[in-house]
């Protein structure tokens, strides 16, 4: 079936609403407006205002209410329109959602799913272009997912809803219009494992979400000069699939990590550190990183493009890694 990432996400929500009466969606403009990015378009008409709930502009309260509703036995899907606004809800996410189970000695788990749009690339400037999913992966008690494909857009939500703990799903804004084929019976997918999206022998490009296509395009470019890159899609940023990371590096002995976060303190730093810790003596070159430049993301297209990871920068880092210590 021909579909888009947006439609796949919507199909996942529709299925979840149909399968489990406890599931409901709440967030800013998810109902009458149809969703800030039109992901929930039509759901209000199908499921009604009781289960498709438009909220006031109150990120802390409706995210916290999602936590409370989960404690109360529901299975809320809370949509925070974009990750940029989630900064207003971090107290609820970090101090409550992430801590309640442990603080209560195992008594109160929080089966909540929070969906957010993330990332730059659409000339929305500094306050609307954050990529904070890797940053939030620092917080114990949270599970962080980054669907990069139609299958994952379609399949991760249900698995996340079955998870007894809080799961944050980050949808890169540039993916919604991506079109492709999806099996008619596509459904739930595992959310534990990283997946090799392209097999290769010379080096590993490790990435997720919005930069998966960047890495795949870079791999094509590299193939043209005879460099055979493997591309690993992390899918889950917390926990990380260490086995898959070790496996690809054991195979290629060289790695470049790509993500759209700012370089310092990026998820790439964590992946790089783990690779060095676990595979130091297998490595033929230092682990490379391609991240966003450490600037507030600017509006002007040429400046924004220069700030974000690009196919050229990934390919260059890959060549460097392959050249080094060869």
């Amino acid at each position: 079936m021909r579909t888009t990432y947006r439609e796949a996400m919507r199909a996942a929500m529709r299925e979840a609403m149909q399968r489990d009466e406890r599931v409901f969606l709440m967030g800013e403009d998810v109902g009458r407006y149809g969703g800030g990015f039109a992901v929930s378009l039509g759901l209000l008409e199908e499921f009604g205002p009781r289960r498709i709930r438009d909220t006031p502009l109150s990120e802390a309260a409706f995210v916290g209410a999602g936590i409370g509703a989960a404690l109360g036995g529901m299975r809320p899907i809370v949509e925070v329109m974009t990750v940029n606004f989630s900064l207003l809800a971090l107290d609820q996410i970090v101090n409550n959602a992430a801590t309640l189970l442990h603080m209560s000695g195992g008594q109160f788990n929080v089966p909540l799913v929070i969906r957010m749009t993330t990332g730059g690339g659409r000339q929305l400037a500094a306050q609307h272009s954050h990529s904070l999913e890797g940053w939030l992966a620092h917080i114990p008690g949270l599970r962080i997912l980054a669907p990069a494909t139609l299958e994952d857009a379609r399949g991760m939500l249900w698995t996340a809803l079955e998870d007894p703990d809080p799961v944050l799903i980050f949808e890169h804004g540039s993916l919604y219009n991506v079109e492709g084929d999806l099996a008619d019976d596509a459904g739930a997918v595992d959310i534990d494992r990283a997946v090799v999206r392209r097999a290769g022998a010379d080096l590993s490009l490790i990435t997720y979400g919005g930069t998966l296509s960047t890495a795949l395009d870079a791999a094509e470019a590299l193939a043209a000069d005879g460099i055979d890159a493997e591309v690993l899609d992390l899918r889950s940023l917390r926990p990380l699939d260490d086995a898959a990371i070790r496996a690809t590096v054991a195979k290629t002995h060289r790695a470049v990590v790509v993500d759209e976060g700012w370089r310092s303190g990026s998820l790439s730093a964590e992946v790089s550190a783990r690779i060095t810790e676990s595979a130091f003596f297998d490595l033929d070159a230092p682990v490379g990183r391609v991240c966003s430049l450490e600037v507030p993301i600017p509006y002007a297209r040429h400046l924004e493009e220069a700030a974000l990871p690009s196919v050229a920068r990934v390919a260059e880092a890959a060549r460097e890694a392959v050249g080094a210590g060869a």
Partner: protein
Amino acid sequence: MNDEERARAIEAQPERAVDLLRQMMRVRRLEERCVELYSATKIRGFLHVYIGEEAVAAGVMSVLGPDDAVVATYREHGHALLRGVSARAIMAEMFGRAEGCCRGRGGSMHLFDAASRFYGGNAIVAGGLPLAVGLALADKLAGRERVTACFFGEGAIAEGEFHESMNLAALWDLPVLFCCENNLYAMGTALERSESQVDLALKAASYEIPSWAVDGMDVLAVEEAARRAASGVRAGGGPHFLELRTYRFRAHSMFDPERYRDKAEVEQWMERDPIRLLGEALEASGRIDAEQRARIADEVEAEIDDAIAFAEAGTLEPISELTRFVTSERAGAGA
């Protein structure tokens, strides 16, 4: 309430009034002992006692049913105890023992109990309000006739989370009973230095929420107001707000030299000690005598002694369990 009204209220339900006295005495003694145990370094971290404010929790809890839910703050020993968490489980928690209600992970500020639907124990001022709104939303969606009682101090009213939660609860007609414990100070900050509008019930009313102020030192007045408010909530009247005017007799925490208020003010309030107030009324009404009061005191003391002994005898959670409950136990779970 004036003495007459109080007397009438006692006559209406004498046993209940005596029980309220007992409940307040339980909280009082539990905490007086906690303070000693803190000095004896048996209890550590932050310890915030409720001494002087017992009428609030006693009055409100007495109108809740087992299916209702409670959300409280870091000053919640009394709320936990009166909600039905055993003194043993509370004391063991403060001792950091595996037998504590949170296996020693939470301590004084984070008492939780699933059995009594006691959702903590939140140490972020106003952080519990959105949770209460969500618990109430779950009840509304599930068509359950339950109340979620949410306790917080007057200091929380300045927080954005208060504002957002009040609006959401009112907008969606959610069954939340907001209980503002106005003890006039947030740490060292007096109400008039934290709120441009110090009439808190009036402020709450600006959200279109039925709100009124209550004498928080008079447990009978609190109980009456709480019953009225709770039944309003149960009847589908949406959230209600109570401003419970009370006072903290002790320091904010064990680290507070109390530079911000003078003894005279504290002593004046102590004359309206909620336990004394009800005790005297009960004696005046002849419903209880010194001997009976002494008996209750002994029973309370025995309960607390037992709780302390239980905590003392408690064990330490094995360190191997430290990483347990970061996430739920399930196939494929990771940190």
